[in-house]
């Protein structure tokens, strides 16, 4: 992770403190939005709750529009904004494993911690499992390294691959996301499940 506040030369400790405070806020929001319930994440898979889809795409759209407008106003340098590096093979394999983990465990890494924080035992086991997984991955990494590093594409933007301007891609993504939200809500009605919170 890089400095949270790269504008000034503030010490690493202050940076970590800022990260901690932001992290607390993030965790609090996740919990308040009901993400510590594994039904929210599983609902995405079964189609009866598309909150996760909405939240992730809303976050993406907000961030995307923010970056485009700030860049236009001369307030942010897009060249030094971190773009995740793209390793095709490991992205696909990792995506499948992560997706399976989502639906089996009912948490994403972030929500598992918020759920563990409010005392959910399955979430604590989930966190424990993540740590075991991290340990195993670290131990067998030399065996996986070739596969892990293969098909490296660098830091690429989808708009660059499509050969269109960032703004056009933003509009495209917004239209697609809006369509998904509307279709998702139809699906929510179709796959509706009874609220079982009271029974638990």
């Amino acid at each position, binding site marked *: 992770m*890089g400095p949270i506040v790269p504008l000034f030369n503030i010490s690493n400790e202050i940076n970590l403190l800022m990260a901690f405070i932001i992290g607390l806020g993030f965790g609090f929001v996740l919990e308040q939005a009901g993400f510590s319930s594994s039904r929210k994440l599983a609902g995405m898979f079964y189609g009866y709750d598309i909150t996760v889809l909405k939240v992730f795409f809303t976050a993406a759209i907000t961030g995307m529009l923010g970056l485009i407008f700030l860049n236009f106003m001369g307030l942010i340098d*897009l060249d030094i*904004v971190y773009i995740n590096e793209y390793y095709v093979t490991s992205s696909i394999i990792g995506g499948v494993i992560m997706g399976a983990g989502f639906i089996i465990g009912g948490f994403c890494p972030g929500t598992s911690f918020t759920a563990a924080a409010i005392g959910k035992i399955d979430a604590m086991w989930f966190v424990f499992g993540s740590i075991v997984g991290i340990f195993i991955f670290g131990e067998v990494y030399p065996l996986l390294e070739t596969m892990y590093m293969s098909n490296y594409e660098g830091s690429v933007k989808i708009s660059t691959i499509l050969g269109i301007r960032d703004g056009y891609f933003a509009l495209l993504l917004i239209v697609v996301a809006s369509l998904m939200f509307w279709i998702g809500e139809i699906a929510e009605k179709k796959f509706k499940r009874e609220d079982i919170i009271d029974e638990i």
Partner: protein
Amino acid sequence: MNTRIIFTIIVISLGSIAAILPKTKTSSTQLTADELLMEMKLQTYVVSTDELADLLISNDPAIMLIDVRDSVAYQQYHLPGAINIPLKDLLHPDWIPYVDQISKKNIFYSNGTTLSNEAWIVTKQLGFRNNYVLGGGLNEWFSSIISPERPASTDPNEIWALYETRKAASMYFSGSKPAAREDNSTILPPIPRKKKTRVQGGCS
């Protein structure tokens, strides 16, 4: 109207604005004219000849002198340890690792300060760090260090102290010195710096 419809309209219109915005490029490293003028006014990038003489005499390993004049002038005379990067070749890929690095203090010099200042402005605008200019250039080097002017006898002690230091430096740079050890060392090319540091990050 349904809130969902309102939100959909708002977000799509924001997206449309994003799509029609002209393509702009914001660079965090490039200075505006005002900022550049301020840098020049403050003269923070200037290394005086006295400072340079001191650094050279103490064999400071952290400085790199860069002669931005052409190679003919460089062959005729150059400061000890200087490398030659003519101004027109400043951004040649071979030389980029020398001017875009973070380990040494580069000092540009030319006869006056015109070429060296140009080199500094170019590198500054590209966001390269650790580049400085020799104040007054070689002309100043000769008039202050190699043949310093003798102050009047009524001048204050500080001026005389400076004169004596300069005279000693002059002897160091131009006088007879014990035969130097045979120097087989070559100036090692610096390790190219990685592209502008991006903020590293990850997700959930």
